[in-house]
């Protein structure tokens, strides 16, 4: 695999979303939107993926910023993770998202990396990144799901030819907050629930989100329904900085006189999409917030998990994290 200067491309710097959509619409499959570039440029440098036309979004002011709206808060897709981490508004009302952003990679990456980039980043399956001709890359093999495949970081659920997982830290937080993703294309704007925004290999093996070529994620809307809830976010990774999760967990819950009244909880890096743990939600709603409920929730969370050769540790890990989320939130 050659590793040196990127292959050439043409660079466009639109100043408005309309222009960006127009460009991406024209370029179709050959176009590639770039924001922080931390993921994109790796692909180009490794020469595993190419783009003929790169559309640099960083000059589009309307994509930045955290705004209050009547229904909650709207975060522009180009808002950096540092801005999210340090936003007093988010820290006060949606702390789980600020906490998740704080655990993404390293300070420099958070300074340039955007919320849109973090949720749209490609999977970290090392076979796929290495440039193998796997299913996700358009081939006919999964190298990770073989008897000797090194699949410690891969999935417990949702395997369908591909066993890669979602690497994002903010995505489970957005699912837990019931966020709405605002997607724009030439035909206009539509709002998609965060849960439906991410797709597994059974829907489309070559993409991780519903974004089609020519579409942009322009904003994320956080509904006021979950503002000020009790939150929990934890990420377990090998290192304490610049690392992808082995498992991460995000929860939002309202506790009324010791009883869990409402809860949304999601885990990352156990499936190709951030996995909303609806079973846990059902088990704990109406139960007291205590160690016993937490233990039940942990057991419920891992039901049906199908481990690969090297990743069965994720089962007790997820169980423990769910337990902690319920107990300590």
């Amino acid at each position, binding site marked *: 695999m050659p590793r040196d200067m*990127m292959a050439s491309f043409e660079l466009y710097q639109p100043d408005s979303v309309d222009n960006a959509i127009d*460009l991406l619409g024209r370029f179709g499959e050959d176009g590639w939107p770039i924001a922080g570039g931390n993921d994109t440029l790796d692909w180009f440098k490794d020469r595993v993926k190419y783009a003929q036309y790169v559309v640099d979004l960083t000059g589009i002011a309307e994509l930045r910023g955290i705004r209050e709206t009547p229904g909650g808060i709207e975060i522009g897709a180009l808002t950096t993770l540092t801005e999210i981490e340090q936003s007093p508004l988010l820290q006060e009302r949606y702390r789980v998202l600020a906490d998740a952003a704080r655990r993404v990679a390293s300070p420099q990456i958070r300074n340039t990396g955007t919320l849109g980039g973090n949720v749209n980043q490609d999977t970290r399956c090392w076979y796929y990144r290495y440039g193998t001709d796997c299913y996700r890359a358009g081939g006919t093999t999964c190298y990770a799901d073989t008897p000797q495949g090194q699949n410690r970081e891969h999935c417990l659920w949702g395997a369908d030819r591909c066993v890669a997982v979602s690497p994002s830290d903010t995505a489970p937080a957005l699912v837990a907050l019931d966020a709405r993703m605002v997607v724009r294309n030439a035909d206009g704007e539509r709002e998609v629930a965060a849960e439906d925004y991410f797709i597994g290999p059974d829907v489309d093996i070559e993409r991780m989100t519903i974004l089609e070529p020519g579409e942009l994620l322009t904003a994320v809307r956080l509904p006021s329904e979950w503002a000020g809830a009790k939150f929990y976010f934890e990420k377990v990774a090998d290192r304490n900085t610049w690392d992808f999760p082995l498992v991460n967990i995000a929860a939002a819950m309202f506790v009324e006189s010791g009883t869990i009244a409402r809860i949304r909880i999601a885990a990352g890096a156990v499936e190709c999409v951030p996995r909303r743990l609806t079973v846990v939600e059902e088990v704990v709603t109406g139960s007291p917030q205590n160690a016993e409920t937490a233990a039940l929730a942990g057991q419920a969370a891992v039901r049906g998990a199908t481990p690969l050769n090297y990743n069965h540790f994720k089962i007790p890990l997820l169980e423990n994290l769910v337990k902690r989320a319920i107990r300590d939130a």
Partner: protein
Amino acid sequence: MYPDSRFDKTTAAVLGRGPVVLESLFSYDQSACPSVLALQGECLMAEDQTTQMAVAAPFPEPRIDAGGILATVGRSKASRRKFIKGVIVSGAAVSSAGYVFGGLSGCTPEQAAPGGVERLLSLNVNGETRRVDVLPNETLAMTLRYKLGLTGTKLGCDRAECGACTVLIDGIPSYSCSTLTHAVRGRAITTIEGLEGPNGELHPVQQAMIDELGPQCGFCTPGQIMTAVALLRANPNPTRDEARFAMSGNLCRCGAYDHYLNSIMRAAQDA
């Protein structure tokens, strides 16, 4: 290895039409992007200082046979310099519009006409305005090191993983290896060379690094210093833990983390 047809293409591109799509100086993989035409040779003929520096891009393996290209371009005769001047002029016209994307005429993929960005741009580096010839696929680290001669910024992993290339963009530490130069047009870039005081004295962080013997091998030190400078500007009296968190995007393979933290705490104290 580099068939003549490629140079014919170059020649045709230069002579045949005004605007040409420019290919990376460093690129060798034509198959990756077959529709793009090459323009390596042109810069070699330029007398303009900026473009001469562009040629100086010292990549470990010279992908192109400079002599061969020169000869080829020489055969295609005349007006290389004029051509480059033409680009400069149009560059000025477009850059006056800043980021504005002015209409789509001539930019459709079918026509594969000039790229959206102009190659020549003004960068604000260490308080100076530097005119520089930048390729669309060039990272800030490449521009700083190989075009502007600011080799204090190091390239470690080139994958936004190690932090050796950290520079300040509008005062915010960023990995310059993973930032496109075109994306920082109009923003203030500070490199390790820009920390020097008016009389050549060292920045307090640099001085503290010396006093505390911060580095071992020193390769990651420019990046460490840039991150520390940004930290101390934002938070002049950090706790050791705050400093540790802020510095966590910089790797040190010698493991001199403890000494770096001592240096930063000392710089904060002395300042």
